């Protein structure tokens, strides 16, 4: 058989061969993707390994609800990193693998069959929360508060500049947000998010516009509301070679129990949403005012020498813009 003919046969085979034949061919060195097989209820379960971030439980629930014949093994990235051997074992044992790009790379590097991997990028969108940053200690571990690893850049930079609490609170204004490019975060954040999902083969563009019409759909920069995860879970489910049912019931939102940063009113208004300055700490149903939030953060930052912490997802250009903002403002 000529090379061209072989390619044409394989091209056709990729679309029609059952998994067993495909596996046999693969053993003979041919790269063949097995045709999706729809299993009926009562058939043997289709085993799925799901490794994502803290959205994992919601994704798992959505997939199980939509696909009654699947059995999902789910844990988060941190667990996969902590026990790579078990992760590889699970990859080998499951029929479909739903993995983040980083986990996909780690799995493929260690010989896991790439054809059974469905990519699921982390959901990270700063449009509603352009002030949110992560802070790392010198040992690279996260600085945490009652809000986990999320921090306000304005709050942290104010503390580093030696400002008091009242002066810091006075900086949460449209003018300062403009200087820090917060109003452009929507556009850049949207493009990056949509590109990440398009690159993974699950375009979310139309649903992104629908989410935005309903107001702020993020608890924090990487904690979307559950209906967002539900929509994405539906796209992922469509990639599994199993029977699906059309279920539109709402999904519970465990991430709502986590920390919730407000979308500041000035930012919200520019993004067609409603905002506030009330912060909800993790695992407790209470709210902090902006002053209370800044006070709590200052107590945390004061435990570290000035300049000891490292801002992540932040640019030095913005730090300079912040310093220009406060220059001469407080008589210092």
């Amino acid at each position, binding site marked *: 058989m000529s090379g061209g003919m072989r390619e044409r046969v394989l091209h056709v085979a990729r679309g029609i061969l059952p998994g067993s034949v495909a596996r046999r061919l693969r053993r003979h060195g041919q790269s063949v993707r097995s045709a999706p097989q729809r299993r009926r209820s009562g058939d043997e379960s289709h085993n799925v390994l799901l490794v994502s971030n803290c959205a994992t439980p919601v994704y798992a629930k959505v997939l199980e609800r939509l696909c009654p014949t699947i059995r999902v093994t789910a844990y988060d990235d941190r667990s996969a990193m902590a026990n790579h051997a078990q992760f590889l074992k699970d990859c080998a044992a499951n029929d479909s693998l739903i993995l983040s790009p980083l986990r996909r790379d780690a799995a493929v590097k260690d010989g896991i069959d790439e054809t059974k991997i469905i990519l699921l990028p982390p959901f990270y969108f700063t449009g509603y929360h352009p002030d949110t940053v992560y802070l790392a200690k010198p040992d690279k571990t996260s600085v945490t508060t009652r809000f986990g690893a999320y921090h306000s850049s304005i709050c942290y930079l104010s503390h580093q500049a030696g400002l008091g609490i009242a002066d810091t609170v006075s900086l949460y204004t449209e003018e300062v947000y403009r200087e820090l490019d917060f109003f452009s975060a929507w556009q850049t954040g949207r493009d990056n998010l949509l590109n990440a999902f398009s690159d993974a083969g699950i375009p979310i563009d139309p649903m992104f516009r629908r989410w935005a019409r309903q107001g702020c759909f993020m608890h924090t920069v990487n904690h979307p509301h559950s209906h967002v995860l539900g929509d994405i879970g539906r796209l992922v489910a469509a990639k599994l070679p199993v029977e699906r049912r059309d279920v539109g019931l709402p999904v519970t939102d465990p991430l709502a129990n986590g920390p919730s940063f407000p979308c500041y009113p000035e930012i919200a208004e520019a993004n067609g949403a409603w905002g506030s300055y009330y912060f909800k700490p993790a695992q407790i149903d209470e709210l902090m005012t902006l002053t209370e939030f800044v006070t709590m953060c200052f107590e945390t930052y004061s435990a570290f020498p000035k300049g000891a912490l490292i801002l992540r*997802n932040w640019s030095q250009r913005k730090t300079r813009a912040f310093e220009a903002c406060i220059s001469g403002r407080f008589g210092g």
Partner: protein
Amino acid sequence: MADNPYESGQDYQFWRRAVSRTEAHLVDPVTHPKFTLTRTDRIATAGSCFAQHISRRLGALGFNYFVPEGGEGLTPEDRQRGQYGVFSARYGNLYTVHQLNQLFREAMHGEGRHETAWQREDGRFVDPYRPTVAPEGYASPGDVAEARAEHLGHVRRVFAEADIFVFTLGLTEAWRSREDGAVFPLAPGVAGGGFDEARHTFHNFTIDETRAELASFLDGLREVNPEVRVLLTVSPVPLIATFEDRHVLVSTTYSKSVLRVAAQAACDASDMVDYFPSYEIITGSPTGGMYFEEDSREVNSIGVAHAMRSFVSAYTDEGDGRADMALRREESEAYGEAASIVCDEEEVDRSVSS
């Protein structure tokens, strides 16, 4: 094969590109603004309820909101109570084009009115052409006339000195005097006076009447202020009630349609007149009602903010605050690292329990 005439069209001409692929709050229907505003241009406002939103935002955004009748010397409370600054002068809501033009003719040409004062149930008197701007009313018809004379002096300045005149067309239904055709903002008897079928009548202006009246006003305005530029908008606020024997939603569509066509005709006829599509921004299907309050009538602040973002972007050279290419590149490069930061739920739990 013949050329497809749409092939050379711009993105904004196609619904899929301009609307379907754009977040609702970023849809910007302004394409060819006819002029640019500076922060020193004197901007005057008049019109219906929605124009009040525009007035408020202009000042807050740092524009030179021109208010000859600003209530200097009054306390802030008295200014607010007396509706000073709501518009450039205290003419109250000018819902119809006919109301605007009759005010213009009265202020600039001394045209008189048959009815000059209405008495309220409390015995006080009000100005029939702005019955709600002075809540305390006036002691006598003479006092009403005196206040109106002073008011008209300010109105003359509005028409003669404004660099930009923003007028929001509100509706077509009106109550008129049978005696001289004067148009009232409210039906006689609502905020003063009394309805008399022999003297008052309802009228719903047609497109021909509205278009002609608007053209007449603009001609007159140019005579007294040749350099003035006019920005027309149509209020997205539905009618609160219709006197026509039909559903208020149907009457609203009629009114807004007439006003929208009249505004377009005026815009097409002059380089000095432009149409700003706040009506489309607020009521268009992309936003699907998200810019209305619970009553589906009043416009909420995020809707007004959208309209004003579009206004600033179109009519000033200050840009729209969107990211430039360098910023987008910087953010794009940082995205991968930020997105891959592992969720810190466990750390949250630790921090909370510690």
